[in-house]
């Protein structure tokens, strides 16, 4: 195995450990921290099922953002929908055999995934040109967006500019997944794309990007409002 492959394999596993370990740590940390008092944002459903139903809808359509800031919703929502297609586009490289429906989906997934730079650029310029958003935006906010942008562009380059040996790429990725790494295809655009994704993986659990899991744990939106029906004790006891 070449030194370069060795380096990437090592970094990949480290990245996976940091990503999964870090994200688990963060999310478990939220889950384990008590909520001494009941603070659901009312009106709120009075049963667990009701809360799940309500959140399934409002999270699926980004309801709060939709009623809050329509243009940001257009950018943010389309970006997240595109993430789904990006995921569907890449999933075939990590699993074998590839299910038929996933193969069927590829042209559509490509069509949407290829649009990724548009919402990202929109979200960046929104931060730059609207005074309120400029005021609240820091380096980290731009970093996350720019990272997404270059990951997207390098990915598109792999498809449209400098095509890689997809079979070799899949063999490499599958080798990583199966804990039996093989030689990495030495294709510059792929290496760039892959490196940036690793960077994102490392960055993710340390950043605001944990909102991806945190959104499911927010007490105001996920607590059941059943104070009339139940007695809630303070999980910490007296204070």
């Amino acid at each position, binding site marked *: 195995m070449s030194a370069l492959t060795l380096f990437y394999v090592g970094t990949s596993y480290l990245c996976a450990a940091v990503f999964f370990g870090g994200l688990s740590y963060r999310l478990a940390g939220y889950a384990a921290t008590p909520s001494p008092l009941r603070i659901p944002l009312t009106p709120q459903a009075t049963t667990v099922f009701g809360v799940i139903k309500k959140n399934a809808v409002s999270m699926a359509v980004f309801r709060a*953002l939709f009623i*809050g800031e329509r243009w*940001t919703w257009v950018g943010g929502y389309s970006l997240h929908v595109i993430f789904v297609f990006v995921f569907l586009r890449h999933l075939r490289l990590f699993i074998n055999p590839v299910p038929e429906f996933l193969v069927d989906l590829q042209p559509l997934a490509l069509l949407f995934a290829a649009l990724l730079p548009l919402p990202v650029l929109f979200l960046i310029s929104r931060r730059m040109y609207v005074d309120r958003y400029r005021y609240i935006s820091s380096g980290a906010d731009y970093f996350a967006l720019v990272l997404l942008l270059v990951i997207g562009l390098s990915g598109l380059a792999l498809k449209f500019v400098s095509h890689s040996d997809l079979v070799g790429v899949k063999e490499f990725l599958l080798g990583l997944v199966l804990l039996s790494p093989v030689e990495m295809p030495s294709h510059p655009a792929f290496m760039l794309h892959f490196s940036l994704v690793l960077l994102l993986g490392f960055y993710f659990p340390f950043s605001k990007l944990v*909102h991806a899991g945190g959104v499911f*744990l*927010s007490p105001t939106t*996920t607590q059941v*409002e059943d104070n009339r029906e139940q*007695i809630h004790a303070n999980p910490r006891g007296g204070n």
Partner: protein
Amino acid sequence: MAKPIFDIPNLDEALKTPAVKKGASAHLKIHPAQPPLMEKLGFPPALVEGWQKKAVEKLGELKEKYKSLKLFMEVCVKCGSCADKCHYYLGTSDPNNMPVGRQELMRKVYRKNFTVGGALFGKLANAEEMDEETLKEWSTYFYQCSQCRRCSVFCPFGIDTAEITMAAREIMDSIGAGHKYSVEIIGKVHDVGNNLGIPKPALQSTLDFLEEDVKEATGADVKFPLDQEGADVLFITPSADFFSSPHVDSLVGYAKVFHAAGIGFTFSSHASEFANFGMFVGNYDQMKKISERIVQAARDLKVKRIIVGECGHAWRVAYSFWETLNGPFDFLDVKKPMHVCEFTHDLIKKGALTFDKTANDEFTVTYHDSCNVARASRMGDAPGGQFEIPREILRAVCNKYVEMPDAVNRQKTFCCGGGGGLLTDELMELRVKGAAAKTSALKTVMQEKGVNTMAMICAICKAQFSKVLPYYEIPMETVAGIHQLVSNAIRLGEK
């Protein structure tokens, strides 16, 4: 009214997002709490040695105590959806009054001390130490938040600035930097039993006066009993109801409802206050201690249930927190606290009350949803009862009832501008500017639908609007309590 020394917002523009003006409300400062006031509550009398470190320690302690704080510190993506949803930002244009801007004041300290990125990259990652400048910002802008939760309605993650404001105030109190208004009032509750500091003899004379006054006006022997052991109901109401106008008119309304329904009730001199400023200062122990008095009074007076008067934040404390703080209420027949609107509403549904609606014909009434009732509690059996029950009462007692525009109604209601412990004179400019959003909606229905009365069920809202509406050339008499209108229309079966 004394001439204001600041610009009054233009109501036609009040709901439009203003351009950012840095530092526009930096001059609006609170009065610091004096040492004896702080000590009474067990806080350090003045800024302690090494407060920078202690503040960070306290923040670390609170983030492990409250899931809300920890999660809200970490998951904000700064999308800006909340930015123009705060009445104080709309009124002042100060970016630190954008909810996310306010949160950032704490987040930058949090990042520095509790995140890897903040520790590694410092200012580059928008992470800063707790220092004099930061404390100054905290003591300014965390007292320009009324904990109304409107921002969290528009947050994709439900981030509630109120939780952050409460934590910030708790931290500041813990290092010896308190706000005179809240700290002094909590002290009075402990000493005298109510926010205003009305001693028992004064309370008794006030209630006697009201009995006579109502008798004079209606001929009915409506009772205002105090400390009457064995009464069915313990009635707890904000002490402003014993002091201010128009608050007292609702007090009369409560008593008339009890009279008409033939249900015995009593006030308590031990617990002559429903408000719980422990919530405003974010202090769990104070909140618990303050509400403990009410439980004690209920035990001592051997009542069967507790009904509470028109107060917004206290209804949140009662409905959402009481049982957690002081429960369970096994000694009561009805274990859950009941809002007076629920009580009256039930009686109306049962047909136990009769009204002469024409008594309110001079009023075209609209309803102001108070923030803590709307977004932090409930009434009745179904979600949203807190919106419908008060409205149903109003429709039952008035012929002319009008809704405010949807964008500022129900869950999306704007704060009156004086909630969350900001109902203090040194913040008058903030209060006037913060009231602009809701007032503009009021003005719309006044002009378009002839509204001349805005009903509400919060002592703070009543006091705040009575005070600030005249700045917008709207008479203070526009403000009314729901039970004030009930009082006008209710038939007592005598006279």
